[in-house]
């Protein structure tokens, strides 16, 4: 039962989302390894997604059933990534195509 839960501080969540977005953009310009940037970005994105799910979508205050349903795609996506891994190693880095037009980047 959701009963009468007190309303979360929506504006507070908004500021958090905004701050995390600004950090994300700053992170891509950091002079650190690409892998580290990637890990930071994925972590930040997942934090933002959970904030939206927990507070805006009220998962924090809902019956556990809904939380389990919401977790299902996450689990399946992890499986999907593992299912794709053998294919990844099978692709030798060669999907480079012959350039179609001679355009200058930027």
């Amino acid at each position: 039962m959701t009963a009468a839960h007190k309303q979360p501080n929506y504006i507070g969540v908004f500021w958090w989302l905004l701050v995390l977005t600004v950090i994300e953009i700053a992170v891509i310009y950091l002079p650190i390894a690409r892998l580290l940037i990637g890990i930071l970005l994925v972590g930040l994105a997942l934090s933002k997604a959970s904030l939206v799910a927990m507070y805006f979508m009220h998962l924090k205050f809902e019956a556990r059933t809904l939380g389990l349903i919401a977790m299902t795609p996450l689990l399946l996506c992890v499986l999907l990534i593992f299912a794709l891994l053998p294919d990844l190693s099978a692709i030798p880095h060669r999907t480079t195509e012959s350039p179609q037009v001679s355009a200058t980047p930027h």
Partner: protein
Amino acid sequence: MITTAVEPVESPLTPESWGKLGMWIFLAADAMSFGGLLAGYGALRYGSADWPVPAGVLGIGLTAFMTFLLISSSVTMVLALAAIQRGDLRGLRTFLTLTVLGGLMFLGMQAYEWTHLIHRGLTLTSNPFGARLFGTTFFIITGFHGAHVTGGVIYLSCYLVRALLGRMTPANANGIEIAALYWHFVDLVWILVFTFVYLL
């Protein structure tokens, strides 16, 4: 003669939550569509030798603002729900209007972004900045998300029209809550798309 009434089993699901359950199941399935697209994006990018750095091709400033817009429209959506729950129909109209406007502005900016990129040669089948599949995956993923935003704007507009005609009462709060779930999901997916397609 009935002697003992069957004690109703305490169910975690109230009648109002059936609709929510339905929406959550739909969203879980829909999340897999996006999951599949993003995983495919990752695999193609990994297998490509000349994948451009997205931040160099796509405008981060504009899309950061689009992120801000969607997050803001999520906030106005929770405020619309809070308004109808406390019987404030005027607040419902105001916040629903703001949410729909946020969605429309997002779509307008996406159209602008796409036009700009197409003029620079990035299309579904061509990309002057490197791997051709970059253009394909970019337009398919952002297009699929944009279609969801369009659907959300139509969905919320139906409620907005009803609210403006004075046909919404606090009894409709459950409908607004379910519509809000969809809208927040679209915001949540954009957070992921923004990170994986634009920033990473």
